[in-house]
């Protein structure tokens, strides 16, 4: 198989043989779809791909997570704790739930939005605030970046474009060894014709945001 790698990540991916992404969030945020888009994009780049996803309860407002691994040689979907390359969190408390999946080389991208689970107060729990969660995460992790992707999606024209913004950020950050072309093609595959323009804008807004994060990284 021809291994196509972009952006100077050759050593990384060849040494590791595979690249791992963990997507987390709340049912309805488009986690599964995002994972599916990434999987097709990786396929277009010639990689083997595996995912493992939470199905079923997703529409009932529960936590949703999806593993993705791709590379020239990958057999299985589950990522050992400490070996995730990228964690893409659509919601901040869900980010905290999986913090211990990250290791020294993990980049953590967090949509700074809190969705408080229904009934937590009635169950006698107190849900932490956005700021508190942000602080906890910062204390625990180094390579962590926060942004407001919902705002960018709205700016593009629809809250539904959240996942495309997130994908743009990932790409713009330059931490994802997938070609822009492939990702763009894959996104279009899953977007109905009438929403393609909005999503194209969302993708660009995401990429710009990702680039500014990349400057922070340097």
């Amino acid at each position: 198989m021809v291994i196509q790698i972009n952006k100077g990540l050759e050593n990384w991916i060849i040494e590791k043989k595979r690249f791992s992404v963990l997507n987390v969030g709340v049912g309805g945020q488009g986690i599964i779809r995002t994972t599916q888009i990434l999987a097709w994009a990786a396929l277009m780049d010639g990689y083997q791909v595996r995912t493992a996803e939470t199905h079923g309860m997703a529409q009932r407002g529960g936590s949703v997570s999806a593993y993705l691994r791709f590379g020239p040689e990958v057999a299985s979907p589950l990522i050992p704790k400490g070996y995730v390359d990228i964690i893409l969190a659509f919601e901040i408390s869900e980010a905290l739930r999986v913090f211990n999946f990250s290791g020294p080389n993990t980049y953590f991208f967090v949509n700074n939005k809190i969705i408080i689970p229904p009934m937590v107060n009635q169950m006698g729990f107190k849900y932490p605030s956005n700021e508190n969660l942000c602080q906890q995460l910062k204390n625990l992790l180094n390579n962590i970046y926060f942004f407001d992707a919902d705002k960018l999606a709205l700016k593009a024209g629809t809250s539904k474009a959240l996942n495309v913004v997130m994908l743009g950020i990932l790409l713009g950050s330059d931490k994802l060894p997938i070609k822009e072309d492939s990702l763009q093609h894959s996104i279009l595959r899953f977007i109905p014709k009438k929403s393609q323009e909005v999503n194209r804008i969302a993708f660009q807004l995401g990429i710009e945001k990702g680039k500014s994060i990349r400057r922070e990284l340097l």
Partner: protein
Amino acid sequence: MSMPYFAEEIPGKRVIMLGNEAIARGILEAGVVIGAGYPGTPSSEILDTLAKMKPYYPHLNIEWSINEKVGFEVAYGGSMSNARSVALMKHVGLNVASDAFMTACYAGARGGMVVVSADDPNCFSSQNEQDNRYFGLHALIPVFEPSTAQEAKDLIKYAFEFSEEHHTIVLFRTTTRLNHGRGDVMLGEIQNIDRPYGFDWDRARWVCLPSHSRVLRTKLLERFEKISNLADEFPFNSLKLSSEKINGIRYGFIAAGIPYAQLIDTLIDFGLENKVSILKLGMVIPPPKKLIRKLLSSVDKILVVEELEPIIENILKQLAYENKLVNEVEIHGKDYFPQQGEFSGEIYLEKVANFIGIKFEKNSIPDIKISLPPRLPVLCPGCSHRSTFYAITLLEKELKLKFINSSDIGCYTLAVYKPLECVDTEICMGGSIGLANGFAKIHSTENPILAILGDSTFFHSGVPALINAVYNQNNILVVILDNRSTSMTGFQDNPGTGIKITKEPGTRVVIEELVRGCGVPSENIWVEDSNNLNKMVEKLREAVKSQGVRVFISRHLCSLLEEREFRLKQIQIPVVKVDPSKCKGCLICVNQFGCPALSFDSEEKKTNIDQEICRGCKVCISVCQYDAIYEEIN
């Protein structure tokens, strides 16, 4: 609409497929004619996908059956008629089908017959995590298990051929990560099976009365023995031997399914993939005896990597004994890996390192305990089940009686949580009514006994238990939550909707007529709109206070489907608001009714309605005692 990627006739094309799509694709490629099953996570998307293929492949004759036993029988009727047939279910579904299954395995297959059992280590969405590989040993039929989406497609395709060649039913076992994981798959040829279908009147084979069954049993044993001998050449089994020693010891591994894939990646991580011997099983039952003997005599220590029960491990120990190798080789399994749940990625790293005696330091940051309340799944905004359960809680308070709410499996089981706490039992589908029959024998009218279950569950296995209550005069109130859908597993239709899996019209079975036919007198049957709360309370009161077997049908379309329907027909969703001048901040709507669209502004001391997620069911208007919630009409 363009043809979905899983239906395309382009052999060699590489696509990404969900495991369940890959299984459906394999079924299509094998030229299967009959597919039947009952929904259940993580298996449901297989038949859902076949339904999406059907418009392009009209020979596919598929259905959602009433339950797994009937689904199995439908498929088996196909096999008896020489057609390739498949029965699809989740692991516990095989318990329901097992009566038919156990004896059918005696008579075996004519047209290729495969039973798919989707197991669920970790109980991600199941009431237990039973290991259905045992069913292969129990019924004396082969069990196939794939480790990737590609292998799932190829292996199930092969399973039909194998089944026909050896006249055996094949059990195709998967686990959640296979079903609900995606992988790259290369499309294969779609086979065209060109042969006449039809029954053969072979009574000696299909009539399992004792004199026939004894003969069939002999044949079954012979068949299993033959398959057992063939296992060594089975194309999806493979043994890779290595004579390398690590610190003077030769190591071996055995695995199948997802654990095999995960093990391979782990060995690669440690650079060990060519330094150890590996036996990969595509057919886990019966095991390949010669390959195992070869492995046993080629290594010093073996680790069996299998989730749940130590089935392969025990077989291995038995074979070591039979081959007089007990003192030559150490066999490990459950002394390393747990017998419960799913193995996480890091468990593989840790246990393999442990086993081989290599140093492995965890890469992850310290596992600090974080305190974060759980995000539990909840009944949706506008869910009609909530309204029914709320009516039940109101009545319990009003009548000052403690109900026994014998319940069942479906979305409504989520009412076990606060604030409704209206689910007291949940064992298996249909169990609500069965158990209620028993409670009725112990408890007097001090504890009204309610059996609460969904429409699909009632059709699945509630009906016989209801007839039992009528016949034996067990005093119970059955509440059927008829949301016109099998919602929990993905909104499949059922006899109550009268729509078939293909979306073509079938014949609708009207629940109230069915109930009457079971012998429940008309005056003991109520049918109400779940979302008309006041009427619900009034009529439920009547039902609770009456005697005898009573059935209360609470009917309202699932709110997710209703929302879809509104959108399709461009109907405006009702806008429901709180009048802050009237809201007393009593919190009843938030704390006792508990719709996720309702929240409390603790500064203003008023209820808020989240317009983003409110589905306009209007039930909270009746919940409020101060008329503070209203529908905005413009």
